[in-house]
């Protein structure tokens, strides 16, 4: 009989205890982040979409060589000797003209290995993570700005590659 009442009291106390816990949590501020209107500030070294500052790119192609998924395509051609010299931001001479610098983000595995060998630190990962698209081809980013010297030169190059 005594244990009956003791169990009854214990049950009542534990119920009230748990209700107290629930009551406290009713008024603690919620942890939800209202995503599309509010966003996390991404960490400084977060690895998301790749970006190449093409003005500093010397077209060495080390990033393309190191990429484990082959998502970077670089095609270059030599500048003519009589052209004026072009420099990257850190003073390196740009001896090559970068005709094609494509990054296929559908292939990228976000390892960031390509950013380490870059001699002019022009290739890097950004914190930008909202870049889903309706067409898969929109994930192929073209960075190159230089036009090939002669129109036929580029065509030769492409056919050679294919």
């Amino acid at each position, binding site marked *: 009989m005594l244990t*009956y009442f003791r169990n*009854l009291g214990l049950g009542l106390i534990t*119920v009230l205890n*748990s*209700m107290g*816990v*629930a*009551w406290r*949590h*009713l*008024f*603690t*501020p*919620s*942890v*939800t982040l*209202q995503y599309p209107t509010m966003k996390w500030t991404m960490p400084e070294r977060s690895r998301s979409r790749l970006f190449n500052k093409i003005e500093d790119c010397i077209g060495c192609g080390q990033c393309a060589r190191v990429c484990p998924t082959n998502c970077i395509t670089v095609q270059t051609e030599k500048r003519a000797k009589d052209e004026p010299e072009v420099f990257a931001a850190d003073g390196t001479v740009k001896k090559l003209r970068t005709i094609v610098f494509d990054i296929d983000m559908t292939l990228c595995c976000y390892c960031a290995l390509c950013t380490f060998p870059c001699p002019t630190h022009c290739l890097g990962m950004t914190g930008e993570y909202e870049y889903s698209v309706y067409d898969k081809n929109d994930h192929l980013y073209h960075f190159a700005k230089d036009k090939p010297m002669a129109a036929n030169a580029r065509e030769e190059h492409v056919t050679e590659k294919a």
Partner: protein
Amino acid sequence: MESIARLLQLIPKYNALPGIVRALLPMLVSCILVFALLALAVLFLVWMERKVSAHIQDRLGPMYVGGWHGWAQTLADALKLLLKEDIVPESIDTLLYKMAPFIVFLGAFAAFVVVPFGAASFVTDLNIGILYIVAVGSLSVIGIIMAGWASNNKYSLYGGMRAAAQIISYEIPSAIAIMTVIIPVGSLSMVDIVNAQKGGIQHWFLFRNPFIFLAFVIYFIASLAEVNRTPFDIPEAESELVAGYHTEYSGMRFAFFFLAEYANMLLVASVATTLFLGGWTQAIPASIAPQLIPGPILFFLKVLVLVFIQMWLRWSLPRLRVDQLMYLSWKVLLPISLVLVLGVGWLTVYW
């Protein structure tokens, strides 16, 4: 219903209508009114449940639909359920399967007929009001067993059987707890019970004597079990029985089960309010302070407080095992409520 009959007199040539129309029209109008109010209240309660549960779990709950804190979320959900495909499984008992949701809802809805929302706003004043509520309220068991049986699904059948065992066991302590109120009032009519509690908070049965206070606690616990709320939700225990007796239901039929569940919550809360919290009567008597809140709104506020406690309990307690459930009903609530009835009888006779 009398007030609605009086309102209908305003219709031109109302008295020229045939007698049967004049007899049925007030009933029909008041039933539609109660149904509409019930549906609105259920929409609100579902939203409130989601909000309360979210905030207890440190979340926000619905925030977008409708603008302010997702107030239109349940409206959108109801619309979605209306538009959904009504899947009827192949090997079912068709008649029972199709009838079950409506019977479950009928049990909850029909009981609201005798609940007095205000001094003059009730559909009818039966002289056996509370007995009628106890009887009609347990009609939903039949619907639940029908749903469980007709679905031809082991989980549904388990859910239905558990619901039957649970609701019938808990009917007894809840009815006996109701008796503690009927003894001092001397009437089964809901209106008489409210009238006996007029004149301020100290006249409410909850605070009038200690036995009835304990009876209120017992009624509250038993009513939680009767409406299959956590911690007594073994008939629809998600982790064991998928969704219990309404596993096979979809679309509008599922919505009816949902509606019935929340209507039942409202019903037990309004019965508890009427019996123990003075129904629509004011907490402060008119001689002390002006009565600013109208009766029906006050009634709804009291009901809302009780419903909030139901939700609060739901999100703070785990589910009981079947044997624990039976232990609580037969070995704890029943003996205590019997002792309380004796105590109230003693107080009523010798005080």
